[in-house]
């Protein structure tokens, strides 16, 4: 029964997608930034700097994978940054630290999944607008994180847990591997499973999807849990990297992730977009930050540059959409 929708929403072949007008613009921008970086700074194209960039990108990167699913389905999740903070704080209370690194990891992802579940219930069954439900969650989760930690960063004393943030596997930091693994799993789920096609279908037309027999409410619920889990994994990476949990981390991560997804070519209203685009979006922002710090430029100029990139990308997107 759902066959026609699924067929209609199935992505075109890889070659065609890579050469779509918007993707060419995105890849050209990406390449231009890399060329600019290597011309400007002798430290840019060193192995250690590339690994620094990838490690920096991994936290927002993992969040952006979940955000891509949410936006593709026509939703939005503003609570991801607050979830990172709350999950990190819950996992680093003295009680949690007493349980060891595995339990800390489980608490971090578990708390995040629970918050995602709550988002999903409010949106799918409480009929709340995603923007409002997750905005309320942002405020409440930050408040709870502050309440639990008392506003003071909690140092992690478990050396094994901290290793997650710094260990090298084949010369590459573990967070980068985790980022890569989440991207691969996300890509397979989105492009090779019915779940992925349904996600795009409900973003394209929720009512038609419902009539075609897709359980839109359940699909939506699971999507917000996925976004929560991604934020939880990001929370583990960040907490281990900082060797502390704090209620004051993850500020504006939701906007960083949304910006990356949008410049990556995903339509904000849902139904169209790619995961690969989001990842290039994350890398573009991380590269810009890196180059600006390498060149010792002030933060105000950096913010202006980010804004210009978002506008340029969206304008380009509008042109490529209207030319079809």
């Amino acid at each position, binding site marked *: 029964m759902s066959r026609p929708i699924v067929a209609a929403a199935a992505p075109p072949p890889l070659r065609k997608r890579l050469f779509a007008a918007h993707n060419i613009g995105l890849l050209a921008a990406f390449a231009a930034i890399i060329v600019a970086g290597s011309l400007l700074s002798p430290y840019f194209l060193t192995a*250690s*700097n590339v690994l620094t960039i990838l490690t*920096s990108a991994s936290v927002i990167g993992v969040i952006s994978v979940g955000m891509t699913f949410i936006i593709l389905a026509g939703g939005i999740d503003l609570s991801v940054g607050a979830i990172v903070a709350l999950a990190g704080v819950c996992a680093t209370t003295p009680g949690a630290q007493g349980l060891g690194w595995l339990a800390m990891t489980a608490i971090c992802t578990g708390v995040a999944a629970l918050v995602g579940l709550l988002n999903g219930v409010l949106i799918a069954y409480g009929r709340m607008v995603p923007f409002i439900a997750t905005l309320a969650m942002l405020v409440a989760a930050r408040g709870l994180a502050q309440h639990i930690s008392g506003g003071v960063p909690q*140092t992690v004393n478990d050396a094994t847990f901290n290793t997650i943030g710094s260990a090298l596997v084949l010369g590459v930091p573990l967070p980068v591997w985790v980022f890569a693994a989440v991207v691969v799993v996300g890509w397979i789920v989105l492009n090779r499973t019915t779940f992925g096609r349904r996600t795009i279908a409900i973003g394209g037309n929720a009512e038609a999807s419902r009539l075609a027999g897709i359980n839109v409410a359940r699909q939506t619920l699971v999507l917000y849990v996925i976004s929560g889990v991604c934020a939880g994994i990001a929370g583990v990476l960040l907490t281990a990297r900082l060797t*502390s949990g704090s209620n004051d981390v993850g500020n504006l991560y939701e906007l960083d992730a949304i910006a990356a997804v949008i410049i990556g070519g995903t339509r904000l209203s849902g139904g169209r977009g790619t995961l690969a685009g989001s990842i290039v979006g994350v890398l573009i922002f991380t590269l810009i930050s890196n180059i600006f*710090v*390498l060149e010792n430029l*002030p933060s105000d100029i950096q913010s202006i540059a980010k804004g210009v990139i978002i506008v340029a990308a969206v304008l380009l997107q509008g042109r490529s959409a209207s030319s079809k």
Partner: protein
Amino acid sequence: MKRAELVQAAAVAAAGAAFAGTSTLAVTQAAFAQSGKKINIGFSAPGANHGWLAAITKNAKAQAAKYPDVELALTEGNSTSAEQIGQIETLINRKVDVLVILPQEGQALTAVATKAMRAGIPVVNLDRIFSSPLAYRTWIGGDNYGMGVSAGNYIGQTLKAGKVVEIAGLDSLELTKQRSAGFADALKGYPGITLVARQAADFTPDTGERVMANVLQAQPHIDAVWNHDDDQGIGVEAAIRNAHRSEFFMVGGAGSKHAMDVIRAGGIIKATVLYSPSMSASAVNLARLIGLGRGLSETVEKAVPSSITLYSAVVTKENVARYADVGF
């Protein structure tokens, strides 16, 4: 305090009580009992999303609890100036005797503080200053410029020559500019020292990590780092550790418990320049003295001064024990 010390303290207290009348504590307590005056202090500070702000509120509460003649009315959790104005208006309506206000923004809260003063409630302005002297009876706060000077002089005297990196807080805040100005002015006295990089890290641990990780890529050799804020310093420290760098030392800012622990243990942080949240405890003391109509006992003046600027002391391994109790 260990059990034995507690027993000792109790014994000393008991002995003191036996000679009551000679101890100053007993004298002041007797004076309260006579006058019977209770001072109601209203306290308003921004919501504690940062370790420093959390300590501000905690210290004020603890200090008020030390005086049997002080009652503290505390409002918490405001995150915008508008919310804080509402909370202060409530405190004015409750007719507190003295107000202690750490405003979200000095400019935005000036009107409501002026209103309190006109209603006969003296205002002790804590740290972020109001834009009009009519808005407060007394100002007490830290010295951001002096903090930069202390950090610059410590690094200058320790290094004499070398490359220095500055990790600032939030560039849109006036206090960040003052700290950086003090640091730059102090470093002018040491021509051998060059400031090779200055980046802002927004006062949070994760941004501190991200910025420092990038700075370390651009600077193959550093001799010292001044980081404006110990909370964001947790991230700066993590970046240094993850990059396996150790050729330099770091100077912190504000004076967190964590920074003091690292200083004591001989870690990468060799010093931190204070911007201590103990100032809120001092503000409660000043509010009480104003309420009682007294002056500061260490000056001969009959009334509390109108302005007190705190000194940004340098905490190092040598003196860290003395400052441990103000670490937050």
